[in-house]
């Protein structure tokens, strides 16, 4: 039997004005296990805590019930007070007689009666409380960053600068991501690669950063502080150590018809290739599907011309296993496919392009050498139409429900750049809303209108009709002028919605990180924990969490790095002791609990058990304390009740029910 002390707080008059605290104290004396009961004006004050301290010592209390404000307010205060007096902090229960009682009831009799019942429930619960001790788990001081775009690069640099080793896993042959494909960046119009390549070089040279390009995460096991990750290094067919990056192989490669992924399919590349000139690492890969040597066995020119002897046709995929304390997801985004938007004639006309394609066309290293031209006939476009929100803010299944956030600004940028470079080209932007929240963003948009004469029309385009003369007829409406517009354009640019990289779902599953229906990773709290996944030890950087521009991505990347550093800086992690536990004598090993565990915290082991003299090997559920967050989903799934939650056990909750219904 516990020796319980009950402490009733007046909270000034907050409680005492509506609840007869003396009566509550008196009623407490009759409850089983109660050996001490008193009231005080402010239990949370130093003096109030001193009363608790004294009573624990003098009356040898083993459990406390504090009738006061919400446990969300002062549970920690009273737990700490108990601990100082030598009592296990988990032997404290709070009866919430302020928020749930005195503040919402007016009648003293009624409120007092309810306060007594709430106290009884707390006493019933504390009677069944058991001392709990937080567990400890170790922290591997190494971080993994999945994705080598600007988000991943920034996160890796920040973590490494704090002194922790970082590995970056990038799926493509080079780091750099989407940003490396961009020409200029808003709102300052810096050249994208001028600001990105130094960072790529920095990452490459950093002694604490190791880059796995052309690699993918194969599996993830473990939990916060102690992840074990398998990384598949795809066969590059080129020895990274020997290659000098001279580029001769690419020049001589006879297979040159593959579409360049980097140029969004607007140009071709050789079968052995680096995606772009500033690639990091500057080591090519052989595209085995395009390579003549791999297709027919005859060729081998690259091997012959390579003076370093770096070409290795026999290379195979390699699996690297590494341990990490923290994982940052920075998988980025892609444009949605536009095949469901027939009305914009994207697949019918070469001159209807996406913004990212325009980005490549405008880029000096792009397919046209930076010259703005129609892809159909190479002529200079004189009339360009931009269509906003293609697939963004869509309620149907053709597009995405969210605003892609970056399109308004990059379209203003495109319009401005075109008007600047080609002043005799007219630019018309059909918009639904122009959204420019951000530092210097609206000023930037206004410059496009006021200084560069970009024609903004409020109204979504209905249809783009390719004409026999090669022009594009754009049918739109000007909602403000109430007129329908038919405009002949030479080029139409679609601001296609962005979507998270489709591979992220697979990665989220491996990490047991939660993901929403749009494939964006879910943050632990929308406002207060925006860079953490609800799964401990997983952090989010960049567009994988939601649409973002570059400055936002970089700030979030830094924030994710700080969170990861905060974790890596710890030597040991204290775990929440209110975790689930399975009783090995009752567990059926049926696997139902593992099905509902959101954290993958439950595994099974064959264990020798002694069940009242019967010795046998049984399949038993084992809960990993470091992973379990204490939700209790497993406890209800377990039909035998073998699985129970410490701190909220079945018997405790039933006791509370009984006390309330008594």
């Amino acid at each position, binding site marked *: 039997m516990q020796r319980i002390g009950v402490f009733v707080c007046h909270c000034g008059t907050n409680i005492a004005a509506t609840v007869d605290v003396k009566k509550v104290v008196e009623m407490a004396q009759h409850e089983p296990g109660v050996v001490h009961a008193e009231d005080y004006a402010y239990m949370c004050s130093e003096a109030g805590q001193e009363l608790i301290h004294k009573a624990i010592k003098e009356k040898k209390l083993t459990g406390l019930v504090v009738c006061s404000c919400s446990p969300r307010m002062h549970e920690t205060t009273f737990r700490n007070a108990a601990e100082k007096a030598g009592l296990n902090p988990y032997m404290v229960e709070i009866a919430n007689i302020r928020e749930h009682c005195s503040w919402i009831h007016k009648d003293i009799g009624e409120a007092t009666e309810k306060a007594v019942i709430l106290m009884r429930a707390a006493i019933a619960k504390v009677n069944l409380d058991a001392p709990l001790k937080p567990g400890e788990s170790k922290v591997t001081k190494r971080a993994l960053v999945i994705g080598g775009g600007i988000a991943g690069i920034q996160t890796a640099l920040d973590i490494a600068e704090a002194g922790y080793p970082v590995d970056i896993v990038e799926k493509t042959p080079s780091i750099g991501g989407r940003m490396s494909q961009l020409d200029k960046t808003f709102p300052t119009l810096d050249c994208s690669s001028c600001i990105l390549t130094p960072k790529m070089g920095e990452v490459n040279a950093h002694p604490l950063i190791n880059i796995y390009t052309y690699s993918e995460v194969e599996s993830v096991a473990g939990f916060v502080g102690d992840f074990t990750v398998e990384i598949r290094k795809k066969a590059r067919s080129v020895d990274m150590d020997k290659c000098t990056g001279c580029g001769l192989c690419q020049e001589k490669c006879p297979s040159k018809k593959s579409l360049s992924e980097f140029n969004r399919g607007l140009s071709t590349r050789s079968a052995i290739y680096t995606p772009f000139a500033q690639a990091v690492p500057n080591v090519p890969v052989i595209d085995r599907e395009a390579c003549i040597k791999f297709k027919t066995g005859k060729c081998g020119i690259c091997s012959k011309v390579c003076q370093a002897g770096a070409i290795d046709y026999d290379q195979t995929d390699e699996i690297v296993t590494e341990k990490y304390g923290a994982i940052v997801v920075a998988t980025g985004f892609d444009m949605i496919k536009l095949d469901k938007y027939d009305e914009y004639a994207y697949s019918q006309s070469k001159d209807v392009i996406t913004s990212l394609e325009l980005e490549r066309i405008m880029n000096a290293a792009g397919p046209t050498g930076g010259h703005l031209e129609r892809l159909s006939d190479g002529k200079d476009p004189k009339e360009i139409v931009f269509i906003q929100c293609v697939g963004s803010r869509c309620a149907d299944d053709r597009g995405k429900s969210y605003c892609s956030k970056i399109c308004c600004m990059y379209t203003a940028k495109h319009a401005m750049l075109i008007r600047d470079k080609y002043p005799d080209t007219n630019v018309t932007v059909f918009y639904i809303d122009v959204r420019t929240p951000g530092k210097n963003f609206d000023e930037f948009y206004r410059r496009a209108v006021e200084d560069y004469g970009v024609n903004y029309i409020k109204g979504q385009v209905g249809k783009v009709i390719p004409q026999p003369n090669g022009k594009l007829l754009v049918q739109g409406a000007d909602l403000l002028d109430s007129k329908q517009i038919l405009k002949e354009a030479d080029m139409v640019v679609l601001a296609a919605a962005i979507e998270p990289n489709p591979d992220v779902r697979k990665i989220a599953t491996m990490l047991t990180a939660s993901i929403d*229906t749009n494939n964006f990773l879910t943050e632990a709290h929308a406002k207060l924990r925006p860079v953490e996944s609800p799964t401990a030890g997983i952090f989010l950087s960049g567009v994988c969490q939601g649409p973002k521009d570059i400055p936002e991505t970089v700030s979030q990347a830094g924030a994710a790095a700080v969170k990861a550093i905060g974790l890596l800086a710890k030597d040991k992690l204290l775990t929440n002791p209110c975790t689930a536990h399975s009783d090995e004598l009752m567990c*059926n090993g049926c696997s139902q609990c593992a*099905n509902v565990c959101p954290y993958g915290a439950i595994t099974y082991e064959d264990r020798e058990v002694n069940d009242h003299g019967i010795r046998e090997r049984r399949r038993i559920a084992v809960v990993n304390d470091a992973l379990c967050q204490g939700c209790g989903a497993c406890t209800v799934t377990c039909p*035998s*009740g073998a699985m129970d939650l410490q701190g909220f056990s*079945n018997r405790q909750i039933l006791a509370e029910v009984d006390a309330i219904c008594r």
Partner: protein
Amino acid sequence: MQEFVKATSQAGASSHLATAGQRESQTRVINRAKELLADGTVARVLGWKAGDLPYNPEPAYFEKEEDFADFVYNGFCGANLSKYMIEASKLEGKTLVCLKPCDTYSFQELMKEHRVDRDKAYIIGVGCKGKLDIEKIKAMGIKGIQSISGAELEDEAETLTIQTIYGEKTCAYKDAMLERCHVCKGKDHMIFDEIIGESKETKDADRFTEVEKIEAMSPEEKFAFFQKELSKCIRCNACRNVCPACSCRKCVFDSNKFDSAQKANVDSFEEKMFHIIRAFHVAGRCTDCGECSRVCPQGIPLHLFNRKFIKDIDELYGEYQAGADLEPRTPLTDYRFEDAEPGIVAERG
């Protein structure tokens, strides 16, 4: 055994061939079992042996050649042997188990829950053409039964001929079938090593008709119905012991984890809530094998609880048959974002 010989010899000329076929099928099971025992493939055989009455064969192990004298397989072998495989899986060597089509669902469900070891089982899928309910026969006023023929002639048998101390009586096979066979899940075995004998789908009713009838009642009528049925319960635990889904090492009602095994609670909480909680614990895992209702000595239609859950699951979360596959998630360990809200219960009225 004697009754058997007599029964078969009394079968009508038209069903003579079938008789032979069926008798042969029982013999084939026996012969095959002996063979597998002899060559060491299996260490024991789990089947049915004749009881003290012509209609109560019981599950039994057969380990030696001579044991098979009592081996029977006929229309009264309703018992689902899959649950016995939990214990058999712990024994040395393989166990040959005879499973009817509907029993294989239970076996798969138990496999899914890691309670039986597939490698320890040699499954002979035995043919089934509907199992018989002696209570139904008795309810027809047929008393003082000495022998029954037609029970084993399942191929074409349409009539049961029953010798009683009051003379010979007959009844249609169909009319004597267990309720569950009228809503048969199908004649296919979900899992087996080999199949002996043919099966027939005996479904001639909708399995939710009874549930719908209750759903249509007023709350007062519903309550009166269940109060009457549940008041019959003598808490013998037969339903729990026979149920393949109720296979917990320790039942929640026997453990101290919920306070439910305390004396005071045995009298009130368990007393009142046992069947609801039992049905909830097997919801999404119950294959609707109907054993609970078959063994209930008080004749409580316990399957009506399980089937209500099955019907709700089918309607709210999509058609689901427990044990039809080995997918680990059951309807209660799965979800969809757009699932119905609990308020739907009140809305449906």
